[in-house]
């Protein structure tokens, strides 16, 4: 079976600065991957490299067999890359509904389907993006990526700065997406145990290189390996 998302020996960064080095990664349809690592090791840069917001120095990025490594960001989005950035980047002067509608493309995930997935948003659909809470903004950011009906969903620290009750809601949605199958999910997360529990496969980055790529259970079940890869003891959540 050919990979939906395939990174071959990717070296990328910002301008002449290299952040990601010789990274290879292949993800099949429905596969869920956690990307872990300390701050500044290149997790977000990896996401931005897939989205097309960095400079690709070497290597190739393939989506469903097509090379997208040299395509501009908007073409990658149209090809099926959905991105939830760390900063959320909600359009503050647009309402929740407008935020969703400008991203919508035909497919399973319609604006109404997003409102069913996130009932909090449905009740506030006429509120502007800058009038909603951080948790609702995160829901909206995920919803906005989903209405583009992507084949790959990139989530960059979606739980950052959120209250536990909101994290639970978002996790529930992510579990729904995972159960539905078909969608490749790449999750960058600081809450390592949560990510390891959610994603069957994990890669750990260190200084732009993958130092671990394997089953999450291998990592979570081995405190020594956890400590060596992540520099932390077992209690990471």
């Amino acid at each position, binding site marked *: 079976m050919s990979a939906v998302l395939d990174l071959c020996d990717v070296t990328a960064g910002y301008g002449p600065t290299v952040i990601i080095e010789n990274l290879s990664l292949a993800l099949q349809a429905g596969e869920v991957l956690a990307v872990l690592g300390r701050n500044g090791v290149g997790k977000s840069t990896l996401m931005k490299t897939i*989205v097309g*917001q960095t400079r690709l120095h070497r290597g190739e990025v393939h989506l469903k067999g097509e090379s997208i490594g040299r395509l*501009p*960001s*908007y073409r990658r*989005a*149209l090809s099926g890359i959905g*991105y939830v*950035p760390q900063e959320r*980047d909600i*359009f*503050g*002067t*647009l*309402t929740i*509904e*407008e935020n969703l*509608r*400008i*991203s919508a*493309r035909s497919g399973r995930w319609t604006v109404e389907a997003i409102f069913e997935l996130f009932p909090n948003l449905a009740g506030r659909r*006429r509120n502007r993006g*800058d009038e909603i809470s951080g948790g609702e903004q995160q829901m909206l950011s995920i919803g*906005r*990526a989903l209405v*583009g009906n992507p084949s790959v969903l990139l989530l960059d620290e979606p739980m950052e700065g959120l209250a536990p009750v909101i994290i639970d809601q978002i996790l529930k949605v992510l579990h729904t997406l995972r159960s539905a199958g078909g969608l490749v999910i790449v999750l960058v997360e600081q809450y390592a145990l949560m990510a390891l529990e959610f994603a069957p496969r994990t890669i750990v980055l260190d200084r732009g290189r993958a130092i671990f790529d394997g089953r999450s259970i291998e990592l979570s079940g081995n405190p020594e390996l956890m400590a060596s890869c992540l520099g932390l003891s077992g209690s990471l959540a």
Partner: protein
Amino acid sequence: MTRPTDTALPGKGMPAIPASKRWLEAVPWLLALGTYAAAPQYAPLLTQIFVMILFAMSLDLLVGYTGIVTLGHAAQFGTGAYVAGILAARGWITDPTMTAVIAMVAAGCIGLFFGSLMLRTKGLAFLMLSVASGMFLYEIANKATGITGGDDGLQGVVFSPLLGLWEFDFRGTTAFFYSFVMLFLTFIFLRRVVNSPFGWSLRGLRENDLRMSAIGCHNYRRRLTAYTIASTLAGLAGAVQAQCTGFVALNSLSFELSGAVLIMLILGGSGRLYGAMFGVPIYMFAQDYLAKRDPTNWFLWQGIILLILVLFARGGVLSLAERGFHACCRRRPG
């Protein structure tokens, strides 16, 4: 698709007018008609104001909604004015509607041409190119005296009766109603545009173009479309100006006009369509008043007023009015 949100007065940080107070939107239009009814001798001045509002509204699509600040918008206004004027002056086409349409197409083409070059740049580079585009056309019009009248302007521009029924009379009655209708139609059109998914995407571009790109928007094309639409409408404003005054001045392509219309827009409040309706009359009346009171230093006073506005009322006069309105609403619930 559900009904778009009513953001005729969206502002950049203020809530829209509640549905129960929607009747307020009719006030500027009724005020304009009321002023004419009360003092028909001011029809030419009101016509001039309508033309400038139309022009400022077209600029608002760029400045207020798309985040494109240009100092060369008069290039399209002047193109519209000269195209309509030359067609009529030469007797090729004198029908006002037809000349307006041709002027709009010409201004749209000019906008498309300059936009396709300039929108590849951003910030200061774009600003400089926009100034250059206006100066380029200004100099062409200045040198081509045989066609444009050069520095003396294009004179002897006579249009046939509007829809074959109404002559452009010396009292300015036809011009008043013609410019009023054109302004109203443009407003309705722009209101639909800014409240459509296309309009939302323009606001998205203004806020965060990197994010727009990441959701699949071809930012350059979207900006170019907005630029062409704004240019077309600026061309209409220019054509209406030529039709209502029977004259095209060289300064209709000038940098001063581009700057003045930008100031008018900022004065009223950009990004809300109605801002132009407040900014233009305030600017024109203030200019008239200050020029009479202090003919030598009136530019200084104008600058001081603008400085105060920029420092203390960043959203323009309309923003101040909105804040007052919402403060009143909060004090008197229901």
